[in-house]
C-alpha cells in the first residue's frame, strides 16, 4: 500500500515537473540576426499593418482614429473574453520600451518580453510566417503612431483557461513555429499571395473550424465554420462548390477592395473592417491573394447550423 502511494506520488511529481519544463515560455528567438538587419522600411511596415488588420483589434473602441492603438476591445470566445492590449508606443502602457527583438519574439513565438505566453486569440499562429525583417519594419511603423495612455482591462477567463502557463502545452500540441518558405514550383505571384493570406492576413483564423481546445483543424482549414466570436457562420473560402469555386480571381480581388461579392452583396460583420484594411494594399497584392485562394483545394466545411424556423 505504501509502495503504491509512493509510486503515485513520484508519478505526480514527474508529471508536474514535465508540465513545468514543457510549458516553459523561454524561447529560442527566431531572430538571431536582429542586430544585423538593415534600417527598417517604414512604408513596408505600414503595408503589413494594413494587411495584418492590427487596428481592427487594437484601436481604442468608440473613437474614429484607427491609428490610436490603446486597446480594450473585448473579444468574446468559447474560453472567456479577451481584451486586446494597448500596443501604442506609450512607454508605460503600450509597447514603447520594447526592443525589436521583443516585438519579433511576441509576433513569431507568442511570448511577451516578460517571458509569458500570449493566448492564441492574438494570431501569432499566423504572424509567425513573417520574417524578422518584415516584423522589424512593422515595429518601426507602429512606433510612428500616437502614444496612447491607459491600459486595457485584463482578460476575463474562467479556470483553467486563466493559467497562462497552460498555453505552453497548447503550443506543444498545436503551434507550428516554422517561418514562411516559398514554394519554388509556384509563381512569384502565388507565393506573394500565400504569404499575405497565411501570414499577415491571417485569413484562416476566422475561416476555419476549431477543435475543443480552440486550435484550427488542419483538414478543414479555410473551409469556414461557426464564427469564433459567436455570431453566425464564417464562409468556406476553398474551391468547394459551397465556397469560392464560382468566383474568378478578379472577383475575389474586387471583393477584397470594395466589399462587393460577384452578386453585389456587400460583406458584413468583421469582414467589413478586413476589406477596409486590405483595400489599402496594391491591386497586384490583392490579385496575388486571389491567385493563392483560387489554388486552395476544394474542402467541404462543417455543416451549417439549421436555420431557425
Amino acid at each position, binding site marked *: 500500500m505504501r509502495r503504491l502511494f509512493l509510486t503515485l506520488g513520484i508519478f505526480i511529481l514527474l508529471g508536474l515537473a514535465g508540465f513545468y519544463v514543457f510549458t516553459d515560455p523561454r524561447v529560442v528567438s527566431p531572430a538571431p540576426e536582429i542586430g544585423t538587419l538593415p534600417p527598417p522600411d517604414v512604408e513596408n511596415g505600414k503595408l503589413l499593418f494594413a494587411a495584418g488588420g492590427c487596428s481592427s483589434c487594437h484601436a481604442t473602441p468608440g473613437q474614429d482614429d484607427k491609428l490610436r492603438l490603446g486597446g480594450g476591445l473585448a473579444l468574446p470566445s468559447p474560453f472567456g473574453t479577451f481584451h486586446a492590449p494597448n500596443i501604442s508606443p506609450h512607454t508605460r502602457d503600450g509597447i514603447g520600451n520594447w526592443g525589436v527583438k521583443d516585438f519579433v519574439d511576441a509576433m513569431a513565438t507568442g511570448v511577451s518580453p516578460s517571458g509569458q505566453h500570449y493566448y492564441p486569440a492574438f494570431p501569432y499562429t499566423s504572424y509567425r510566417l513573417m520574417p524578422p525583417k518584415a516584423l522589424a519594419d512593422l515595429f518601426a511603423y507602429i512606433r510612428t503612431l500616437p502614444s496612447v495612455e491607459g491600459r486595457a482591462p485584463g482578460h476575463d477567463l474562467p479556470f483553467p483557461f486563466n493559467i497562462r502557463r497552460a498555453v505552453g502545452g497548447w503550443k506543444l500540441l498545436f503551434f507550428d513555429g516554422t517561418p514562411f518558405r516559398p514554394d519554388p514550383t509556384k509563381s512569384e505571384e502565388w507565393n506573394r499571395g500565400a504569404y499575405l493570406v497565411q501570414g499577415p492576413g491571417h485569413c484562416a483564423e476566422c475561416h476555419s473550424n476549431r477543435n475543443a481546445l480552440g486550435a484550427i483543424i488542419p483538414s478543414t482549414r479555410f473551409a469556414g465554420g461557426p*464564427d469564433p466570436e459567436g455570431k*453566425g457562420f464564417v464562409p468556406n473560402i476553398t474551391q468547394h462548390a459551397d465556397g469560392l469555386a464560382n468566383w474568378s480571381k478578379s472577383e475575389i480581388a474586387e471583393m477584397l477592395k470594395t466589399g*462587393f461579392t460577384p452578386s453585389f452583396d456587400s460583406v458584413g*460583420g468583421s469582414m467589413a473592417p478586413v476589406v477596409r484594411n486590405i483595400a489599402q494594399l496594391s491591386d497586384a497584392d490583392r490579385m496575388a491573394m486571389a491567385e493563392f485562394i483560387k489554388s486552395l483545394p476544394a474542402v467541404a466545411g462543417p455543416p451549417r447550423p439549421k436555420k431557425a424556423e
Partner: protein
Amino acid sequence: MIRTVVVAAGLILGLSAVVAQSDPIAQRRDAMKAVGAATREGAAIAKGEAAFDSAKVQMIFKVYADAAKRLPALYPETAKSGGETTAGPKIWEDQGGFKTALAKFETEAVAGGAAAKDLDSFRSAFGAATKNCGSCHEVYRIKK
C-alpha cells in the same frame, strides 16, 4: 373561360402581394436584392465597362433612396429570425443607430442623384453612397 382565368390570375396576384406584405423578411431581402442589382449596374459604369447613361444613373440612386426609405419598417420585433435572414441582433438592440444609418444612406443617395452629372461626379457620388453598404452590414448583419 377567359374571364375565369383573368379573375383567378388576379386573385393569385393579389394573394401573393398580401403574402409578401405580411412577410417582412422576404420584403427586405427583395429590397436588398434591388440595391445589389443597381450596384452591379453602377459598378459597371464606374469601372468603364458600361457607358455613362444619365437615366440609368438616376435610376440607381432612386433604387437606393427607395430601399433606404422602406427598410426601417421591415424589421419588426416579430421578424428577428426564421426564414432566410442574416439580420443581426444589433438592429433591435440599437434601433436608433440602425435608423440613423439608413437615413444617412437615403440622404446620400438623394444627394448622389442630384450631383451625378457626368462620369466623374457619378464615380464620387456612387463611391460615397455605396460606402454605406459595408458600414451598415458591419454592425447590423451577422456572418452567413
